[in-house]
């Protein structure tokens, strides 16, 4: 089963290296890792997608939590989450296939056509992995020339989230709460 971990990390040089080094040396299998700014200035948000069948997810969580710059890490797989991936797909096209490619992308998948040349089309799609995979599979029949994917980002539904909200004070409070609650 796919598991999703979200983490808040201090935005300092070398943090991504520490995270990936831990994943490698503990022999954890991950599907994707994404990094971007969080709502808190000075902190980044990472989302790690792990295959729960091959890797002990709780060990991943605890080992990553030991990294000093990791402020908080939570397994949100059991929560009601929205996860998305963005893909840019460059497809071969001819005057005969062009209309069909555009129809599949825009009508069926609600994707956008972002580049158009006599010989190729670039399609932008966002959605969960299944949706992205299924569009890519369909387009393979026309000839996929190039593919760029982001990996999974995720967020929980509703007002409350697993990570501290905006404001550094809250970052600290959350951390303390976590410390008290952990057994």
């Amino acid at each position: 089963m796919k598991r999703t971990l979200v983490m808040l990390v201090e935005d300092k040089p070398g943090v991504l290296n520490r995270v990936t080094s831990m994943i490698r040396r503990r022999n954890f299998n991950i599907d994707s890792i994404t990094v971007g700014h969080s709502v808190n200035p000075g902190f980044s948000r990472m989302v790690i997608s792990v295959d729960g069948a091959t890797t002990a997810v709780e060990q991943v969580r605890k080992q990553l939590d030991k990294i000093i710059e990791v402020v908080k890490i939570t397994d949100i797989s059991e929560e009601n989450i929205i996860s998305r991936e963005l893909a840019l797909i460059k497809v071969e096209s001819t005057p005969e296939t062009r209309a069909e490619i555009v129809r599949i992308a825009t009508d069926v998948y609600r994707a956008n056509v972002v580049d158009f040349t006599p010989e190729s089309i670039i399609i932008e799609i966002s959605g969960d992995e299944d949706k992205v995979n299924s569009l890519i599979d369909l387009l393979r029949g026309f000839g996929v020339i190039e593919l760029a994917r982001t990996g999974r980002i995720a967020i929980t539904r509703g007002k409350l989230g697993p990570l501290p909200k905006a404001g550094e004070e809250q970052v600290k409070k959350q951390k303390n709460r976590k410390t008290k609650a952990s057994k």
Partner: protein
Amino acid sequence: MAKLKGSQILCESLLKEGTEVVFGFPGGAVLPLYDTLPQYPDLRHILVRHEQAAAHAADAYARVTGKVGVCFATSGPGATNLVTGIANAHLDSVPMVAITGQVARPFIGKDAFQEIDIIGITVPITKHSYAVRKAEELSTVIKEAFHIASTGRPGPVLIDIPKDVFDEEANFNYPEKLDLPGYEPTIHGHPLQIKKAAKLINEAKRPVIITGRGIIISKAYSELKELAEKAQIPVTYTLLGIGGFPESHVLSFGMLGMHGMAYANLAIDSADLIIAIGMRFDDRATSNVSRFATQAQIIHIDIDPAEIGKNLKITVPIVGDCKNVLTELNKIIESQPRVEWVREIEQLRHDHPSHIIRDTEALIPQYVIRQIYEITKGKATIVTGVGQHQMWSAQHYVYDKPNSLVSSGGLGTMGFELPAGMGAKVGIPNEIVWTIAGDGGFQMTIQELATIVQENIGLKIAIMNNGYLGMVRQWQELFYQRRYVATPLAGPDFVKVADAYGIPALRVEHKLDVIPAIQKAMETDGPFLIDFRIEPEENVFPMVAPGASIAEILEEPNKDEASLASK
């Protein structure tokens, strides 16, 4: 406020953190730092002969004093030479701050002379690391580094400082507060979990305690003793747990594991409850983990949450400092006699007397180590390397004194013995420190004899010289049909070597000469070396073969000849 140079800020900050001794080796990138040292006579610098020794010495210094060990090295090869020592401290949870020079900022990333990415190299073997880029960061970095190294589960922290940062001026304000939002170790155990643990202990019929270095780190000696005595629970320990519980205590059942006491392993095998405290179920302790303590529920107390459930399924996990958790636990456990269980394992000890030394005229290492115990009256701190001599030292010295064994456990670093003995003696100069070495490991860091002489470090050295890489030879004998490949070892005449360095030394070839030689070492001021020419093919027993259960233990073959003089 007057501005200080980066190197001065570093020294001022080290003094603020209570540093008294630094083990190090100079070089190009740290020249400005060394140039500043004479301004700080309270910082004693000990010049080693190889940076690996600086790290091992700082490691052992930290273990015996409970303070943070500090070492210096220059960039490039100086830094990479520290790597083994940093890894050793990492695996044994030793608080250490390693400070490396780096090429000046304009050269970073250009493959400059003696430039190496030591931060990248040491990420997997440090608790944390800092690449300093401005002198004004230094004081905060030092404060954080000492805090991180010494709190929670201790470990090494590396600070990499470019050469020109040492010369850069900045205001010196030692910070009062720390800002580490991602670092807050759990010190107090969860009360509900402690209650659950107490219930299991109160209901258990056959409980066994297994302790590790966590007891020593948190100085939970009296709390452990209270737990064991109040609930009458036998205590066993890992190699690094030695010195956490008095070995001659009636409830002490010795080291467990691959070369543990047979009765300790058998007691664990028939236990219905394991109380694991400050230990991490290392494979040398558990052997085949799927067959470890199969009848037992397990309480695991450790300060590192990631250790819990890593190797074994745990019934009741408690994250917290051993001392705090045991204090709370002791309040609610019931006092009970458990006469039957204690008698049962006392019988195991009688039937499987692993601690007895066989009576022979040959010069065997077990006898030598026991005599070091007798002559020092158990007051020595023993430092070992890795291999047979390490196991014999663990088995046949009697560790009643708290924290009296310094050994390389997790990493198993040959060559640790001499520099670590040196660091230990510097940390506790008024106590007796013996390094027990193998002839293989001793030759890996033999150059430190010069440091010992230059700094007049009164370390006593006993080499268990069998002319083999003994532990590997033992495995070749038992598991590779006696094919002794690359284990016969020609050594130098260690007495002559010691003499060349200016250290008094003796060679001992006969059992009769053991006691006088050890006495002579004790009577001599300063360092002393004894080359014990022991039985070449003596093996370490008991032994659990790799992959076996710890209960399937091979005992010494000629047990019948064993003397009845038990320890």
